[in-house]
């Protein structure tokens, strides 16, 4: 069974600075996808960024980028130029290829301070 571990329950960052959220996973699959989801307070969860395991190039979406280390089974999220609206729970998630089932970590609560 796949597991996803987020070792940082809470983090904080100053507005305009950069922060990195950690995620590790365990799987025996060769084909899989990794995701970061954002869940703002009292609002619905939205997809931030995704990465396919076969792609060596790290995914980027505007201020969000990932550092995917396949051998280490690590998938960290970097948020550049942090904004107050980035305050949220961030969940790392795994999906095996050929499956639509998402396995989530426990989340990291990120607070961006003015």
């Amino acid at each position, binding site marked *: 069974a796949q597991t996803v571990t987020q070792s940082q329950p809470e983090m904080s960052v100053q507005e305009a600075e950069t922060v990195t959220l950690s995620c590790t996973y365990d799987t025996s699959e060769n084909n899989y*996808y990794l995701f970061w989801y954002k869940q703002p307070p009292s*609002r*619905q*969860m939205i997809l931030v960024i995704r990465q396919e395991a076969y792609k060596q190039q790290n995914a980027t979406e505007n201020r969000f980028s990932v550092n995917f280390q396949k051998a280490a089974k690590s998938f960290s999220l970097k948020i550049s130029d942090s904004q107050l609206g980035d305050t949220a729970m961030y*969940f790392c*998630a795994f999906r095996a290829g050929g499956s*639509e*089932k*998402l396995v989530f970590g*426990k989340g990291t609560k990120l607070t961006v301070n003015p």
Partner: protein
Amino acid sequence: EAGVAQSPRYKIIEKRQSVAFWCNPISGHATLYWYQQILGQGPKLLIQFQNNGVVDDSQLPKDRFSAERLKGVDSTLKIQPAKLEDSAVYLCASSVGQGYQETQYFGPGTRLLVL
């Protein structure tokens, strides 16, 4: 485009009572998911539907939880009887696309408190 709709948003019940949650996915999305998110944890998949058929219900406590999607559109999740440990947010999601492009869109959730 309207998002995933869920109701009610909040529900408080006594243990051993019954409760039902409703979800209307994004129009045209064939796949629908129900997740349970206990405080301090990530969402856990309870059941996945493809149209009106069940794809995965391996983590659904079938002695008390049931779900249906009779016409392949909206869905209902029921708990009967509820236990204290069922207190959680119940998230509904629907998806479009396949493989790498498959994206799950989440609803606002129903927050359940069992007293």
